């Protein structure tokens, strides 16, 4: 098994930490993982993305042009990465701020309105966990226990009291997932 995915959105949306939690969760299951962020000067409001690979085998290139899955959280990233999903692959996106919805006919498309949901339940901080929940449900690559373990490992101790909220958000993401196109 190898899953090659990209998570792309704005800096500050928790793109990088979501990738990290996912990588940690897979690591807990004994998988090989790599997490390769885009990096640049610390400027607010810029775009951010991270390439995550989860695999049973040694990972060769941590840098990719095409992906099994793209998780897309803003329009710029949609424009940039819709084309890089492999045929038959998965595109999961948050509809907030999206003006041009995905158009490909050869991939599976799902939507999770995490931004709206996060503000509805008054938990803007766990926005990325709602998205993660949707992904975990779709791909079933990592188990919920491992995700919680991943959260524990990647959150500093002083934030551990927030883990129950994060768990709730993950479940919420599983519930509000919408199917747009299934091959």
């Amino acid at each position, binding site marked *: 098994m190898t899953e090659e995915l990209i998570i792309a959105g704005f800096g500050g949306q928790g793109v990088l930490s979501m990738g*990290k939690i996912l990588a940690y969760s897979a690591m807990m299951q004994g998988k090989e*993982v*790599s997490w*390769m*962020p885009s*990096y640049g000067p610390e400027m607010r409001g810029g775009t951010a993305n991270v390439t995550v690979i989860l695999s049973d085998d040694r990972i060769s*290139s941590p*840098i990719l042009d095409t992906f099994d899955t793209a998780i897309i959280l803003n329009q710029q990233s949609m424009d940039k990465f819709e084309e890089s999903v492999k045929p038959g692959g998965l595109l999961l996106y948050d509809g907030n701020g999206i003006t041009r919805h995905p158009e490909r006919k050869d991939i599976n498309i799902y939507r999770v309105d995490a931004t709206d949901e996060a503000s509805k339940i008054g938990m803007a901080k766990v926005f990325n966990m709602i998205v993660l929940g949707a992904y975990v449900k779709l791909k079933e690559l990592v188990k919920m226990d491992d995700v919680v373990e991943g959260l524990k490992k990647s959150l500093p101790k002083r934030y551990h009291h927030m883990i129950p909220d994060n768990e709730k958000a993950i479940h919420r993401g599983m519930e509000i997932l919408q199917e747009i196109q299934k091959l």
Partner: protein
Amino acid sequence: MKKELRLMKGNEAVAEAAIRAGADGYFGYPITPQSEVMEHLMSEKPHERTGMVVLQAESEVAAINMVYGAAGAGKMAMTSSSSPGISLKQEGLSYIAGAELPCLVLNVVRGGPGLGTIQPGQSDYFQAVKGGGHGDYKLITLAPSSVQEMYDFVELGYELAFKYRNPVMLLSDGAIGQMMEKVELTEEKQRRSHEEVIKQCPWATTGKTPDRDHNVITSLELDATKQEQVNHKIQAKYKELEEKEVRFEELQCEDAEYLLIAYGTSARIAQKAVSQAREEGIKLGLLRPITLFPFPKKRLAELAGQVKGMLSVEMSAGQMIEDVKLAVNGKVPAEHFGRLGGIIPSGEEIIEAVRKNFIGG
């Protein structure tokens, strides 16, 4: 015993490895993409954990000279930077090599020249393996291509540095520095005691005791005849390194018709290119130098008798290719493929270059 696993950035792995290897001092200055080395050290409070000194210097010039001082006193010292900062360290490195002192320097290379870009590069190869500063000297140069190797090569680097009394360069790049992978950690070692330092480094400025002459650390020898001898001694050491310490990894070389030579991030991409090319029926192999100096010349010369072409894949305009050409000495066509200015080549581009250069069509 259960292995301790952690998901870490390459830069953090180096920092953690230094603490656990019992390093005595780290001296650095912030620069992207390697600032996490000092940031991780500061957050881990090594002064409390092991007594390791960590200091943010006022510049890279100061930092390397702090390393010079610590190394002369027999301590396990290190610094890290990225290309522009490494340029500033060249004077210090020349002195450290001239005085035959052990230390560890990490270069998380970015694209140059000048301020260049903060994206990954491999264009500091010449600077690392050919000396870099003034005078006839070399740095033992290790090229990690995974986060685990970033971790492991700290201890290996110190081992070689002290064994040969020579500075060791870890030549990495922005991708390996910034990326996170699984790292298997080793147990934390105690830092050497004063007695152990004296025993290991009888030449160091640890304080003159009645039982020995005063120790002097210097790279100066005005008498040209003597200076020539000093140089010969250093050169003999490099020769020994070339005989004993060459390290490399081979991937599907047994039946390879064409060979890629790549280190660091390029080697990771090349690895992917090899499996892709084999699916397309091209018998491609990869030789990944782990030590860039000493360079795996002998093995390349052997492979020159087997393959029909060699392609040096580097994120540079063609630097390592010169060493490849020297090694194969015209026995087989050797070409270069690279992307510049912070661009990482893709597997397809590499296969394309193999086709264009050696197969045709």
